[in-house]
């Protein structure tokens, strides 16, 4: 207990030290940035203390992202803590954010449960010098430095539409199984998917959107309902990692196996069984592990390399960033964002290559 107190005090002192150094460093930086890729000297580097706050601490998706956070922290010799709430609410995240600030964390890596509700707490944190990087789901511009987006929302919509078209063999009825009605991410993806289908695949018809609330119980009941209500249904698109498994599990054990196909966003390990068991499901997802890694590396570049993250800038990433040395900041729906990279579509041909 004592030891920890001392550590916290040390890090607050470190912060004031950092401010002094920062003033000197900014002057030096003007010249050093001309030499591309130059890193601030290790001695001047602020030691990162990263609080990773996912939407929900208990599911595999964010657990996978945390592996990336840890990998980056190990590389940077930073300390990091996984502060996953046990319920998907903004209120729970506000508590974690406040506590992280008080415990002297200087980086918050966050997947937000609400785009507005967290802003007051995040603004207060940023005023105290905490760097906030959001990933997976964003908050309003005021609350963060930069958002790491999984893939462009349009890209996800297009991928979902293409997969649905593939499974329906170009013609038939499609239904959507989403999470909660007010889930921002899903609503945007679904909108793009519908646009894409209307534009490119006129023979596909989206007949319904159901909401499974990201619970296996409700998602299964809704899947049954969709199949009962629409006898000619060809494809169920579930852009949520819980819903897709529930739908695939139901279809694989029902008379609809081989008639109704499931696709959407899901982890390859969760979906392997249903991709290979003859129900011919598909799933797509971005590299979740790298997601956490990039978020921490970008935060490090902001703090220690003093790099700007406004639209058009280029930010240095870490050496473990799957082949990319730097990342480009682009303009997204809310403001500046960095795109993680395209999603991989998992089919029976390639799913065995992935393990997360």
């Amino acid at each position, binding site marked *: *207990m004592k030891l920890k*107190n001392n550590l*916290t*005090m040390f890090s607050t002192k470190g912060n004031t030290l950092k401010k002094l150094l920062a003033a000197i460093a900014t002057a030096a930086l003007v010249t050093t940035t001309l030499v591309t890729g130059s890193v601030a000297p290790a001695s001047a580097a602020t030691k990162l203390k990263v609080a990773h706050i996912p939407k929900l*601490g208990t599911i595999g998706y964010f657990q996978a992202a945390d592996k990336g956070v840890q990998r980056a922290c190990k590389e940077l010799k930073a300390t990091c*803590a996984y*502060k*996953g*709430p*046990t*319920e998907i*609410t*903004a*209120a*729970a995240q*506000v*508590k*974690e954010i*406040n*506590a992280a600030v*008080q*415990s002297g964390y200087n980086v918050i890596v966050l997947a937000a449960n*609400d*785009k*507005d*509700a967290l*802003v*007051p707490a995040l603004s207060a944190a940023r005023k105290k010098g905490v760097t906030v990087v959001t990933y997976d789901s964003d908050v309003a511009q005021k609350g963060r430095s930069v958002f790491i987006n999984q893939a462009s929302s349009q890209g996800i919509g297009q991928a979902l539409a293409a997969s649905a078209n593939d499974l329906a063999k170009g013609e038939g009825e499609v239904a959507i199984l989403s999470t*909660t*009605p*007010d889930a*921002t991410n899903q*609503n945007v993806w679904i909108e793009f998917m519908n646009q894409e289908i209307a534009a490119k695949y006129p023979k596909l018809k989206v007949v319904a959107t159901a909401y499974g609330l990201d619970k296996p119980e409700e998602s299964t009941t809704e899947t049954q309902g969709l199949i009962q209500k629409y006898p000619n249904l060809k494809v169920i698109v579930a852009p949520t990692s819980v819903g897709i498994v529930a739908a695939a599990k139901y279809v694989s054990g029902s008379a609809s196996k081989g008639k109704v196909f499931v696709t959407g966003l899901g982890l390859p390990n969760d979906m392997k069984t249903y991709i290979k068991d003859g129900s011919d499901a598909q799933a797509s997802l971005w590299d979740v592990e790298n997601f956490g890694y990039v978020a921490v590396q970008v935060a490090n570049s902001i703090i220690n390399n003093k790099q700007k993250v406004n639209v058009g800038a280029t930010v240095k990433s870490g050496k473990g960033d799957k082949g990319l040395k730097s990342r480009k900041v682009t303009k997204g729906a809310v403001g500046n964002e960095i795109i993680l990279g395209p999603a991989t579509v998992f089919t029976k041909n390639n799913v065995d290559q992935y393990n997360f």
Partner: protein
Amino acid sequence: MSEKNTFKVRKSWDTAILALLFSVWVLASMTTDNFLSSINVSQIFSNSSEILIMGFAMVFLIITGEIDLSIASILALSSAMLGYSYAAGAPIWLAILIAMAVGTACGFVNGFLVTKLGLGSLAVTIGALALYRGIANGILGTETVNEFPEFWTTWGFDTIGTTFIPQTLPVIIIFGLFFGLLLHNTAFGRRTLAIGQSPEAARFAGINVVRHKIIVFTFTGFMSGVAGVIYTFRFSTAQADNGIGLELLVISACLLGGVSIFGGIGTMWGVVAGVLLASSVESWLTLQEINAQWRTIVTGILLLISVAAPVMVDKYKRARATSANKA
């Protein structure tokens, strides 16, 4: 005779919980740097605002021997109504009034179902829980409303000047004083306790039990509406899943504060201490960087202690009395 004894012990449990609260504060400030820092104290209060507000009315309900599991859904519905009517162009004061009126109406409906139709409150409010949140869902659809006047969102989030006092706290204190006085210093409060002790006796004593219970349910609905307004401004968002799961936290806080689940016993300051104890312990554990996972366990253990402790003390006293008699 034994009933009376437990009653006495229960009464002293309110004091014990207060003592426990202070010892948590002392321990917490000794083991962490910033537990008593102004920010943290402010956050302890503001994190528990909705629970306190709903707790004030819930005490009455539990004392009369009823329960309302739909309060968190009423919170969501009133929040949704606030957002919906404001987005539809109503001035903000009207939207707030509408939100509180909707909450009151929900409470009245619950009271009507329980008393006039004679349905069990535990069962029927599970139905109401789904109903009210469902209506909130239906009203808002895929929308969330988050553009509110800055004056109100600041009120929901900020503190008074540079002090640690959240701007919402005076409102909470006024409600607390009102309901505290109502419970302990008026005929209404005494009637509430009487109904909880024995509904039959209360009826014979000329108390209109049905009407009284409807009033208490309506109060609970109203306060849930108020909590909905505060929640909306605190997080500057009106959406259908606001406050999900809060009902069990409110009930546990009441029980922790010494309100008997069998009715007839309970004090207002016990409940306030119970709410603050729960949120102080939570804050302490968070500052100690103990995971949210462990905090769930601690909530449970606190609840068990709150019911087991009075009984244990009672047993111990009785055992000592018998051995003294023997000697």
